[in-house]
């Protein structure tokens, strides 16, 4: 038998590749650490340079040195609540329909369309929002402007749907068939099986789906910046939903381009970024824990 290369070069090559693979395994940890470090490095000085009374005041008006994060936080929360109210029933409903009821041809239509939605860049949604949705809403609801929190909620609701549908559908698909057959053998209708057995069994997966969807809404930037009217103000009443607002993400995106590097305004924008980072961290880690607990429970049940 002829070996084209001496054994030691093969060994060395293999050792190098294995080393690269092992190192790459840790790349996610490295990047998360770097992201935290750089956000803190640029953002933390804000605490030194801005009065706490300004940071937690009522006005975001950087030109005059007012850096309250409340209006931005309020904007993000308003849009997120609106989007959740829209996306949860539509997303979970569609997931249940696709996984439990839809005939194959309907699945063939629904699933690719949801994937198309997942692939739409956020700036395209924003464009559609500016040109079609907001003029329509202004006329239909007789508002002074169509660029409102509600318009943002509608767009973001749709942008969260693909996440919710695909994660919830996966969760429903992992419910063993025997559960459904057992229930129907006891004489329940298909409908009773779905809501009495299948959906409760997939509960933690559906919760994960909803949380990840909400996480996506909070982090959404371009669409929400383009359609919510760019008004970082605290609301007076419940009609805030139909007034312009501005989210944390949109504030960073629209102001970062104009600030001087290292200025106080720059630092505060990084501080807003830190808040967004930790919000998404909490949402993702909690939903990871919910779904890994589900896996353990399923393993126990099936063993």
């Amino acid at each position, binding site marked *: 038998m002829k070996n084209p290369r001496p054994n030691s070069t093969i060994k060395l090559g293999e050792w190098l590749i*294995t080393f690269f693979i*092992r190192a*790459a395994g840790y790349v996610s940890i490295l*990047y998360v650490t770097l992201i935290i470090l750089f956000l803190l490095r640029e953002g933390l000085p804000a605490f030194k340079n801005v009065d706490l009374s300004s940071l937690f005041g009522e006005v975001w008006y950087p030109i005059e040195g007012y850096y309250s994060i409340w209006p931005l936080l309020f904007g993000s929360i308003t849009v997120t609540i609106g989007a959740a109210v829209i996306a949860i029933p539509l997303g979970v409903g569609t997931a*249940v329909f696709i996984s439990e009821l839809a005939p194959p041809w309907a699945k063939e239509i629904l699933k690719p369309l949801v994937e198309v939605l997942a692939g739409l860049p956020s700036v395209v949604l924003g464009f559609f929002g500016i040109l079609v949705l907001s003029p329509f809403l202004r006329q239909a609801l007789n508002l002074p402007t169509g660029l409102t929190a509600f318009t943002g909620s509608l767009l973001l609701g749709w942008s969260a749907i693909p996440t919710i549908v695909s994660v919830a559908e996966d969760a429903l698909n992992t419910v063993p068939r025997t559960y459904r057959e057992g229930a129907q053998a006891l004489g329940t*209708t298909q409908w009773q099986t779905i809501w009495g057995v299948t959906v409760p069994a997939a509960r933690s997966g559906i919760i994960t789906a909803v949380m990840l969807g909400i996480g996506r809404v909070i982090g959404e930037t371009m669409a929400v910046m383009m359609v919510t009217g760019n008004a970082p103000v605290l609301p007076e009443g419940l009609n805030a939903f139909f007034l312009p607002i501005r989210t944390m993400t949109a504030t960073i995106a629209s102001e970062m381009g104009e600030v001087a590097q290292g200025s106080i305004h720059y630092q505060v924008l990084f501080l807003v970024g830190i808040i967004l980072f930790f919000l998404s961290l909490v949402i993702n880690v909690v939903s990871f824990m919910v779904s890994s607990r589900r896996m353990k429970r399923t393993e126990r049940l099936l063993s």
Partner: protein
Amino acid sequence: MILTPRNKQKIGIAGLIALSTITVLPIVALVIYILVLGLPAISWDFITSFPQDGMRAGGILPAILGTVYLTIGTAIFSVPPGIAAAIYLVEYAPDNTITRLIRIAMINLAGIPSVVYGLFGLGMFVIFLKFGTSILAASLTLSIMTLPVIISTTEEALRSVPNSFRVVSISLGASRWQTIWRIVLPQSIPGIITGIILGLERAAGETAPIMFTGAAFFLPLLPNTPLDPTMALPYHLFVIATQIPGMPVQVQYGTVLVLLAFVLGMNVIATLIRSRARKKRQW
């Protein structure tokens, strides 16, 4: 009507059909709307010439090329480490706390808002490493965002190769790496390519991460080196949709259609590769 279980079921199913329809109809409407209004704006001139008259006329060539550059750059920085990381997680990683930590880090990366990636890229690549607002800085920023997509889809592809393949290969005397290189990777290539395309598709459509790391409002010339800034389709669309007064709608629709074709085209290619590979699979 009496609410017997059977009637309830009928109403319920009708409700779910209605919800699903409400979910997908706007998607169909949006795509048709953009196609119908965008197609008349598309011409050979539009995709091969420079913008003129403050971007109100002419073509969008620099934006198209810029997005191509950024996508290639992102691929260079995200594909090798992404595939390697997935191989590590599937073939090497022990089941311990550190591996769990890697998973949490990955999930966290996947969830970070895109604009926060932009901030990080600005802080690290543009300012700290002094790459300036450049294709390099923007590609690096996008590559970190793309990484979790590539890792998780590659992982899935690797895991779908039956374990018996590995056992047989090792028992014939192959080393672990030989098994991966000759047996596991060739079997999972279609899945990996699908994952790469889906990851790059997302990167190609992103605006927020490149806004302060590499995208330019308008450039009279094409970029010469990776250290130059570039125009890019998504950012260009944002600019002409919001920042330029008196912007003709025609150009906007044409731009949005080109961006959509770029992104959805990648999506279609990925789907085709995946479904062809599934049909050919022999186990």
